[in-house]
């Protein structure tokens, strides 16, 4: 398949010997306008790739922080169509920063896989992470996505043993998302040497960049994970900052943008040191 923004991004970072900072927020959290401002601000703060959560009522792989983010977004009227609108709007001002949509299969299934892929591609989406689509179900979205020119990123977990890795890697493109532990988003990441071992194991099977996510919350942690990963994902920590800065009715305050982006900035700096 042709080069995507994701491929290009990792190539550029590799030349500069840098680790990618991948920031996750949920589309529409706490409202559509604020999440648009956050997207723009995150890039300015030094984020290399945006992972944009597609809100779902039943986020089975997520901890309480991202569950609540989904809930806030849905309450604010977010839908999959509006998530694509948000990407479209972002793309009018930013033609470079890769956007990966992350979420669960059902909203896509209701939208219709084929129209979704077409619309996502034309909106400016670069890749997809669908948590509840393991390689056994690749014909559902993964294979059609590759045909449309979108990267499909499979998760690799500590439980993905060596015999299984080739199957998981077979149709993966863009990068590999290595899940730091057996658990849900927002739980504590295990000691980095364990994660480093896991990443090294996967590296013997692929040349794709390997990104580590789940449980990474501080600039200090990011610095340590950057020693062995090609990219580091931060989600729950940013989303929790959003949550803490809302007023008592759940609306965004001035602090929502400033504090969330300040955290992102300190994380980007940690990776650049």
């Amino acid at each position, binding site marked *: 398949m042709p080069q995507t923004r994701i491929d290009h991004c990792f190539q550029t970072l590799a030349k500069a010997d840098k680790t990618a900072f991948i920031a996750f927020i949920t589309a529409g959290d706490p409202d559509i306008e604020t999440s648009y401002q956050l997207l723009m601000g995150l890039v300015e703060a030094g984020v290399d790739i945006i992972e944009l959560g597609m809100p779902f009522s039943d986020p089975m*792989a997520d901890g309480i922080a991202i569950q609540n983010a989904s809930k806030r977004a849905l309450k604010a009227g977010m*839908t999959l169509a509006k998530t694509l609108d948000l990407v479209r709007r972002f793309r009018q001002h930013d033609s470079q920063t890769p956007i990966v949509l992350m979420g669960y299969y059902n909203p896509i299934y209701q939208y219709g896989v084929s129209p979704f892929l077409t619309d996502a591609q034309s909106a400016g989406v670069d890749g997809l992470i669908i948590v*509840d689509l393991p390689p056994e179900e690749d014909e559902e979205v993964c294979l059609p996505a590759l045909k449309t020119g979108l990267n499909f990123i499979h998760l690799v977990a500590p439980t*993905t043993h060596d015999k299984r890795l080739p199957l998981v890697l077979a149709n993966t493109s863009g990068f590999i998302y290595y899940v730091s532990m057996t658990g849900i988003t927002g739980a504590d990441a295990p000691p980095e040497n364990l994660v480093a071992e896991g990443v090294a194991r996967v590296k013997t099977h692929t040349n794709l960049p390997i990104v580590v996510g789940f449980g990474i919350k501080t600039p200090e942690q990011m610095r340590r994970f950057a020693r062995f990963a090609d990219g580091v994902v931060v989600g729950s920590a940013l989303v929790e900052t959003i949550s803490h800065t809302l007023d008592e009715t759940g609306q965004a305050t001035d602090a929502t943008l400033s504090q969330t982006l300040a955290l992102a900035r300190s994380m980007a700096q940690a990776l650049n040191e």
Partner: protein
Amino acid sequence: MSHSFTAEPDEKGRFGIFGGRFVAETLMPLILEVEQAYKQAKQDADFQAELLDLQKHYVGRPSPLYFAERLTAKLGGAKIYFKRDELNHTGAHKINNCLGQILLAKRMGKTRIIAETGAGQHGVAVATVAARFGLPCKIFMGAKDIERQKPNVFRMRLLGAEICPVTAGAGTLKDAMNEALRDWVTHVENTFYIIGTVAGPHPYPAMVRDFQSVIGLETKTQIMEQEGRLPDILIACIGGGSNAIGLFYPFLDDRTIRLIGVEAGGLGLDTQDHAASLAGGKPGILHGNRTYLLQDSDGQILEGHSISAGLDYPGIGPEHAWLKETGRVEYVTASDDEALEAFQFCTHLEGIMPALEPAHALAHVIKLAPQLKADQLLVMNMCGRGDKDIFAVAQHLQMEID
């Protein structure tokens, strides 16, 4: 049609387009292990012998097939039989499945059990087998369900289970299942998840069906003994659909037998307050499988409503979704009020207090039986007893329990 209805699922766990394995990668290797282990256990004479022995001496199987004489006379139509699975140890059909799964957990060397529960019947059955086999167990239960199923919550505690209240979403069965899946992904090495119904990722729908099929197999033998022929109609209630598939499965290829599943119509299908996934939902993906789901146009899952906490799941087992589309099984609904009436009717007339779940099946029997001829045989699965529901029923009937 020459195709057998008992040949599904395929190797990918599909019943037609339904079923499958829609789970996170972290769980996938374990799911495949469960599938392998179950495949072997199914062929293993020792495993089957141990299960059979426990079914007989621990659960009290076979459960009787009872001719409901007074109900039959009152309704004045078909001859009505109850398959008395409410007489099982723990008071419902749920134990059939739990025994099978805990034997498999043991075989796989798992040391910790988790489960979700709605009405608490499955939770009680899991807590029971966990006690029997000396394994710690954690039961996830919606906070709202804990409130409306207090007797079962207390039973589980007495049995040594840890109850984990779930406040996410509406605090009912679907949310409990989400939380159980989150626990499983976190403790994937040592934990076995005993799913309570014919849903979830493959192999669960097929495995739970197999363990529940004892209901239909016994019914077949018993009706032959009592009537010398197979029944004309089988009726069972459906939440996830485990008791119904357990009764129907051995009869699927007896094409002349009418099979009827009764979903929870709640306050009515024209309202949002029902749990009839087949009648009011459409295909989607949740909890590891593709099936009919109650959902909005954006694919967000809606909360089911039913007077019965065991039926208010917004999905249904994938095999039922497939049996609906193939037309082999008819699916109808009964409302909260109809179930409540059937509950009282049966209790007065037969001295059998049904759980609110089979009271839905009974509500349909009450509608259908009078239209049938006296020589027609109807079997209804009395899949649970109503002791757990007396508080809820009292509240609905505005009676006081002192």
